[in-house]
């Protein structure tokens, strides 16, 4: 398993290079333009100058190689410098600059991390924590009232989109009841009890919307997979041997049911980084999801490229983690 992991990590490098090239080519091919959302009163000649000042007049390959250099050499060196205080060269390195804001892309990402982790990350965590017990109980008591309600809620939760649930919650809890603010304040600093309460209040609605959605999806997989295993021979054997029902359920069945669940969660964790575009828009959380969508709409290629590439790294990494976990959960799975 160890050599397998090493080999996979080694192969990840060419894979990621290919992915980064494909993304760059795709972004270059896409028909949106960084001057697209400027007022029409700005004449075409000026637009042409703006494009030139962004470096859009250079050939595609040059732009891609520049980005590679900036991402893999310049930015890591900068981070190293700021961490250690050492100085490499003259410190005058071209950083990846966003076209819309003209500021370093890495700074933007760092700025957006807190709210994304608070809201999207927490919602994912809650989703998992809710989904696993609900899924286990639903499967164990198949077709009970609990199962039926669980199925209904999760199916409705998954099929009603967040652009609707978000507005519904705002109308109920912000307009009528006035319990929660409808706008997320990213400047809020949590340093005492009252600011913590304010943070919880402003997180309540977006976290609820996202957690419902995540939990709905994961519950279905837990339940289905548990059901598969509950009827297996080994369960009957274990019961016949007199193993306690709780142990049968949680040790034998759950462990064997976790493979699809691990897959779904491993697919989901990287999406925390890409943020929740619609939910972030509705509640104005302005995390990484909003950063990405604004960048895509404004054809801010350096920003989109960097965000998407970091996302790709996480995907490759977490899929590798999932593969390793398969082997631990089910020792019969071998890759060598």
């Amino acid at each position, binding site marked *: 398993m160890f050599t397998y992991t090493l080999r996979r990590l080694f192969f990840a490098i060419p894979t990621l290079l290919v992915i980064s090239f494909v993304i760059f080519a795709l972004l270059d091919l896409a028909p949106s333009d960084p001057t697209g959302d400027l007022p029409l009163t700005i004449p075409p000649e000026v637009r042409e100058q703006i494009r030139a000042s962004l470096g859009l007049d250079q050939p595609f390959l040059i732009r891609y190689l520049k980005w590679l250099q900036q991402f893999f050499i310049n930015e890591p060196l900068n981070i190293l410098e700021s961490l250690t205080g050492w100085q490499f060269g003259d410190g005058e390195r071209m950083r990846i600059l966003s076209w819309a804001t003209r500021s370093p892309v890495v700074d933007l990402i760092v700025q957006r991390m807190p709210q994304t982790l608070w809201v999207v990350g927490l919602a994912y965590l809650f989703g998992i924590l809710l989904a696993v017990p609900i899924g286990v109980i639903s499967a164990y008591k198949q077709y009970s009232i609990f199962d039926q309600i669980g199925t209904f809620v999760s199916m409705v939760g998954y099929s009603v989109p967040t652009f609707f649930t978000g507005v519904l919650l705002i109308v109920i809890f912000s307009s009528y009841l006035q319990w929660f603010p409808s706008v997320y304040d990213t400047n809020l600093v949590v340093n005492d009890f009252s600011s913590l309460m304010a943070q919880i209040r402003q997180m309540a609605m977006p976290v609820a919307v996202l957690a419902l959605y995540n939990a709905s999806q994961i519950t279905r997989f837990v339940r289905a997979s548990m059901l598969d295993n509950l009827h297996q021979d080994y369960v009957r054997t274990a019961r016949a041997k007199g193993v306690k029902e709780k142990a049968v359920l949680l040790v034998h069945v759950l462990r064997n049911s976790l493979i699809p669940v691990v897959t779904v969660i491993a697919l989901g964790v990287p999406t925390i980084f890409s943020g929740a575009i619609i939910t972030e828009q509705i509640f104005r959380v302005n995390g990484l999801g909003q950063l990405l969508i604004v960048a895509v709409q404004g054809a801010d290629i350096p920003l*989109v490229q960097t965000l998407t590439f970091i996302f790709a790294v996480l995907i490759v990494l977490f899929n590798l983690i999932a593969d390793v976990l398969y082997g631990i959960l089910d020792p019969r799975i071998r890759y060598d």
Partner: protein
Amino acid sequence: MTDVTINAAPASPARSAMGDMWRQFRAHKGGVVGLVVFTFIVVAVYVGPFIHTVAPNAINIRDKNQWPSLAHPFGTDNLGKDMLAQVLAGGRISLAVGITAMLLALFLGTLVGVLSGYIRRLDGPLMRVTDLFLALPLLPLLLVIIMLFRDTLRAAFGPETGIFILIVFVIGITSWMHTARIVRGDVLAVKSQEFIVAAKSSGMREYRIIIRHILPNVMSSIMVSATLGIASAIITESALSFLGLGFPSDFPTWGRLLFDGANFLQLTPSRVLWPGLAISLTVLSVNYMGDAIRDALDPRTLKR
């Protein structure tokens, strides 16, 4: 046990196997209810327009934002279009898009998942392709696909069918990766079990092993993916039209109706109630049918 199945299958007529499955399906109460509801929805959206003959995109600005009445059982929207007619018309498109796109994604996902889980040589390359597709930014991808293929398809199939093919293709091609990863994980677990080894050593052909033994054992994950897939295909379609990449704006779909209605939540709640309910009911009924189908296909439940 496996040998029996192999030998029995060619001998007994296919009809009785189907009959067995149907009996199993009928025994599943939820499945029957799901089938009834689903049939009702399908019949309603196809036959409904002959009973409720108001044209879905007939504008009557003087009757805008009405609550339900006899003339407009679901009320009207802000241009005075009849909501019932729109929900019915939207259903035809949404169901077609949802089911076809889901099937396409399911087919691709299962194919990739089974191949990479079962054949070790293919595992690496196929999973790296999956990683690539997972990482691609959706929106620019859609813009590129639309730019490259819309006019060609429009010329070949006309504006409506052309867009339909494009949308189904776009949703299918961008949503198979989850199924692929999940199926692969299941296949990896299943293929190391004894009965597969037994089937292999009995000289059974690989593709028959996959169809006879692997697929039924990963069916439950596929079914869950299918139900969730319909819901997300219907919603994704609405996101596409919101971005200007979907059907023309005078083609109602459930997702679009829900999106357009969200701001009118307080004014005319029926505008969001019915499309939302329609999507949820469809997904619920497909979910229960999926449960029943899985039970019917499950060899272990058959034995009981």
